[in-house]
C-alpha cells in the first residue's frame, strides 16, 4: 500500500471528502448521460476533434465559466473564514491551499480562457478570415489549456493542493518548506497550459498579420483586433520566461537542483524576479483585450465611431512596452536599493498616462452619443469609475517609499481586485452578453442581466472597499485569522456579505442562461445590437466558412458603412472554399500531456518517460502526415446561404 500513500490528501477534511464524492458522482453522471443519449460520437466528431475557431472559442468560454464557479467557491470560503475573528471554519493549511488555488484558477484558468474565448471567436470574424492561421495548432492550444486546468483541479482530491500562494515564492515553495506534492501540481499544470497560451500567441499574431480581408490595413482594424494583436505580442514576449522559471522550479523540486535554493549558490529571490517578469505583463495580457471589448461595446451603444482611434492604438502599444519594464514594483521591499526602486516606481506611474488617455477616449466617445443602456453597456459604464479607483490606488502602490506601508496588506488585495473585477470580469460578462446572440442565436434576457449587473457592482463595492481600510489599518493578506482586539471584524463581515451578493449575481447569470434558452425569441437576425464591425455582417448562426464571399473593407467600421453609406461589402461571387480537416491528434496529445504531468508530479518515472515518448510520437505523426484540407463546393455554400438567409 506504500505506493498509494502518495495519493492521499495530507490534510483531509469533511469538505474534501464531500468534494471527492461530488466529483465521482459528476463523472459517473456525465458518462452515463453521454451513453444514454448516445452522444459519444457527436461529442468526438463535433467538439473534441474540431479545429473550427468558433467551436474552440465556445469551449474556452464554457471552461472559463466552470472555472469562474470553482474560483468563486474558493473566494466565498476565504471570506467566510475571515468573516468573524478567530474563526475555525478552515484550518490554516486548508486556508493556504484555498487562497493559492483561488489565485491560480482565477488568473490562469478563468481569465485567460475567457479572453481566449473572445479572441478565437471574434478575431477571425472581425478581420473577415475563414479561420485562424493554424487551426490545428489552435485546437492543440485549447486542449493543452484544458488538460492543464484539469490537472490543477484534481490536486485537491489527489495528493493535496499547492499552498505557497499563486506567486509560489521560493524558498517557501521549495521541498524543505513545502514537502507535499501540491507545488508540483502548480509547476506542471501552469507549464502545460502555458505552452498552449504561447501557441495561441503565435497563432493570433500570424492570423492578424496575414489573413485580413482585402482593404483592411493595420490602421483600419477594429479596436478589439488591435488589442488582441498587442496582447499576443506580450504573450510571445513573456511566456517563455515563465516556461523557463517553471522548468527550473520543477527541477529544484524533483531533481534536486539549486536554482532557487538558499544554499549552494542558489538564489531564491530570482524566482520572484522571473515570476514577475512574466507576471506583470500577464495582467496587461488580461486587461488589454478587455479594453478592446469595451471599445467595441461603448462605440456600438453610443451610436458613434470610437473617439481617438490612433491614440487608442498608440496607448496600447506604449502600455505593452511599459508593461515589461515595471515588474520590480511587486517586490519593492525585497531589499534592493533606492535607485532600482525609484526606476521601477517611475515606470509604473508612467503606465497611468496611456491608460488615462484610453479612459478619456471612451468618455469622449460617449459625449453627445445616443446612448442605449443595454447590459453590455451597463458593464462598460460601471467599469469606468470603478476601474479609475483601482488605477488611482495602483499609483499609490507605485510609490516605493509608501509601498512599505501597503505591501502584503489587504490594501493591495483590494487594489488588484479593483482593477481585475471591473476591468476583466466586467468586460468578460459584457462580452458574453454582447456576443451571445452571435454564438448561440438568441439574446440573454436584459431584465435579469441588469439585476445581475447591479448586484455584482454593489457586491463588489461591499466586498472590496472595506479591505482598503483594514489594509491601511495593518491587516495582512494570506493570514487565516485575526484576533478580536484588532477591530477588523465588522469590516470583514461586510466583505463577506459583499462576496455573498456577488455569488447571488453569478447565480442570476447562470439562471439567465437557463431562462433565455427557454424563453428568448430566436428570430433576432444577424445584427441584433445594430453594431458596427465585420463580425455582425455574416449570418447567425455563423456558417462554418464564416463568409460566403470574402468581404472588402474600406474603414475600421466596414459593416456600419455598408449599412449607412451603401459601401459594397461583398463584391464578387461565391467560389469554392478551402477548409481544414478535423483531427483527434491535438486532443490525444494533450491527454498524454496530462498523464505526463501527473506522472511527473508524483515522481512516477516510468509512466513519465512512456508518455513523453507518446508526445513526441504525436509530433512525428503530424510532421509526416499528408493533409491538404478539403473544399466546400459552390453548390453546398449556396444551399447553406439560402437556408440562413431565410431566417433573416
Amino acid at each position, binding site marked *: 500500500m506504500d505506493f498509494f500513500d502518495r495519493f492521499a490528501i495530507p490534510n483531509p477534511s469533511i469538505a474534501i471528502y464531500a468534494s471527492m464524492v461530488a466529483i465521482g458522482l459528476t463523472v459517473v453522471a456525465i458518462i452515463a448521460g453521454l451513453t444514454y443519449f448516445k452522444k459519444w460520437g457527436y461529442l468526438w466528431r463535433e467538439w473534441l476533434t474540431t479545429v473550427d475557431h468558433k467551436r474552440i472559442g465556445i469551449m474556452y468560454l464554457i471552461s472559463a465559466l466552470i472555472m469562474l464557479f470553482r474560483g468563486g467557491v474558493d473566494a466565498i470560503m476565504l471570506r467566510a473564514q475571515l468573516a468573524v475573528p478567530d474563526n475555525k471554519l478552515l484550518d490554516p493549511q486548508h486556508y493556504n491551499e484555498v487562497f493559492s488555488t483561488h489565485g491560480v484558477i482565477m488568473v490562469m484558468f478563468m481569465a485567460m480562457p475567457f479572453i481566449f474565448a473572445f479572441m478565437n471567436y471574434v478575431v477571425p470574424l472581425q478581420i473577415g478570415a475563414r479561420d485562424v492561421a493554424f487551426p490545428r495548432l489552435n485546437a492543440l492550444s485549447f486542449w493543452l489549456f484544458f488538460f492543464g486546468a484539469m490537472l490543477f483541479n484534481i490536486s485537491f482530491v489527489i495528493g493535496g493542493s499547492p499552498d505557497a500562494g499563486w506567486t509560489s515564492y521560493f524558498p517557501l515553495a521549495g521541498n524543505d518548506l513545502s514537502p507535499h506534492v501540491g507545488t508540483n501540481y502548480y509547476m506542471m499544470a501552469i507549464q502545460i497550459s502555458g505552452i498552449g497560451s504561447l501557441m495561441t500567441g503565435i497563432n493570433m*499574431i500570424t492570423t492578424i*498579420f*496575414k489573413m485580413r480581408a482585402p482593404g483592411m490595413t493595420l490602421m483600419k482594424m477594429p479596436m478589439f483586433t488591435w488589442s488582441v494583436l498587442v496582447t499576443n*505580442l506580450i504573450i*510571445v*514576449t*513573456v511566456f517563455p*520566461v515563465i516556461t523557463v522559471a517553471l522548468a527550473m522550479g520543477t527541477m529544484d523540486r524533483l531533481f534536486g537542483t539549486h536554482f532557487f535554493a538558499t544554499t549552494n549558490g542558489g*538564489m531564491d*529571490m*530570482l524566482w520572484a*524576479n522571473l515570476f514577475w*517578469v512574466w507576471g506583470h505583463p500577464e495582467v496587461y495580457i488580461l486587461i488589454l483585450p478587455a479594453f478592446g471589448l469595451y471599445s467595441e461595446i461603448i462605440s456600438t451603444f453610443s451610436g458613434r465611431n470610437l473617439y481617438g482611434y490612433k491614440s487608442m492604438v498608440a496607448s496600447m502599444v506604449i502600455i505593452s*512596452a511599459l508593461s*515589461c*519594464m515595471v*515588474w*520590480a514594483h511587486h517586490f519593492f521591499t525585497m*531589499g*534592493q*536599493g*533606492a*535607485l*532600482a526602486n525609484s*526606476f*521601477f516606481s517611475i515606470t509604473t506611474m508612467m503606465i497611468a498616462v496611456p491608460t488615462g488617455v484610453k479612459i478619456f477616449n471612451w468618455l469622449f466617445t460617449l459625449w453627445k452619443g445616443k446612448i442605449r443602456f443595454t447590459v453590455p453597456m451597463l458593464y462598460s459604464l460601471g467599469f469606468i469609475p470603478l476601474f479609475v479607483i483601482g488605477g488611482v490606488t495602483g499609483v499609490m502602490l507605485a510609490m516605493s517609499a509608501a509601498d512599505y506601508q501597503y505591501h502584503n496588506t489587504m490594501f493591495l488585495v483590494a487594489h488588484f481586485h479593483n482593477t481585475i473585477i471591473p476591468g476583466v470580469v466586467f468586460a468578460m460578462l459584457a462580452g458574453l452578453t454582447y456576443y451571445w446572440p452571435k454564438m448561440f442565436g438568441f439574446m440573454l434576457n436584459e431584465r435579469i442581466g441588469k439585476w445581475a449587473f447591479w448586484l455584482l457592482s454593489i457586491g463588489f463595492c461591499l466586498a472590496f472597499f472595506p479591505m482598503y481600510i483594514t489594509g491601511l489599518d495593518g491587516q495582512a493578506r494570506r493570514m487565516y485569522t485575526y484576533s478580536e482586539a484588532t477591530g477588523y471584524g465588522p469590516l470583514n463581515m461586510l466583505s463577506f456579505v459583499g462576496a455573498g451578493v456577488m455569488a447571488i449575481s453569478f447565480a442570476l447569470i447562470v439562471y439567465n442562461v437557463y431562462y433565455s434558452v427557454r424563453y428568448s425569441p430566436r428570430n433576432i437576425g444577424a445584427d441584433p445590437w445594430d453594431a458596427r464591425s465585420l463580425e455582425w455582417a455574416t449570418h447567425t448562426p455563423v456558417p462554418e466558412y464564416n463568409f460566403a464571399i470574402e468581404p472588402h473593407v474600406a474603414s475600421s467600421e466596414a459593416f456600419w458603412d455598408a449599412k449607412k453609406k451603401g459601401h459594397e461589402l461583398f463584391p464578387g461571387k461565391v467560389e469554392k472554399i478551402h477548409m481544414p480537416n478535423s483531427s483527434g491528434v491535438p486532443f490525444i496529445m494533450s491527454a498524454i500531456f496530462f498523464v505526463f504531468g501527473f506522472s511527473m508530479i508524483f515522481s512516477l518515472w516510468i509512466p513519465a518517460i512512456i508518455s513523453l515518448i507518446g508526445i513526441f510520437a504525436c509530433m512525428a505523426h503530424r510532421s509526416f502526415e499528408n493533409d491538404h484540407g478539403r473544399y466546400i463546393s459552390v453548390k453546398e455554400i449556396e444551399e447553406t446561404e439560402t437556408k440562413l438567409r431565410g431566417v433573416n
Partner: protein
Amino acid sequence: MSELFPRKQIMGFVFSLVLTAAALTVYFLHLSFAQGMAVLLITAFVQALLQLVVFMHAGETKDKWIIYGKVYFMIAMALITVFGTLLIFLWDM
C-alpha cells in the same frame, strides 16, 4: 547550373559550423570567465540571426518589416529584462 546551386545555404551552413567551433574553444582554451562569456554571447547572437535570416527566410517577403519589427521588439524587451535584473540584484542590492 549556378542558379540551382544553393550557395547561400551552403555558406550559411559552413558559417554556422564555424560559429559552433568558435564557441567550443571556450571549453578547450581555458579562458577567463569574462572572456568566455563574451565569446559565448557574441557567437550565440550571431548564430541566432544567421538561422533566422538564412534558414528561416526572414526578409524574403514584402512584409519583412513585421518579422524584423517583432524581432527588434523582443530583443529590446529581453535586454530590458536582463539589465533590469542586473540593476536589482547586482548594481543596487
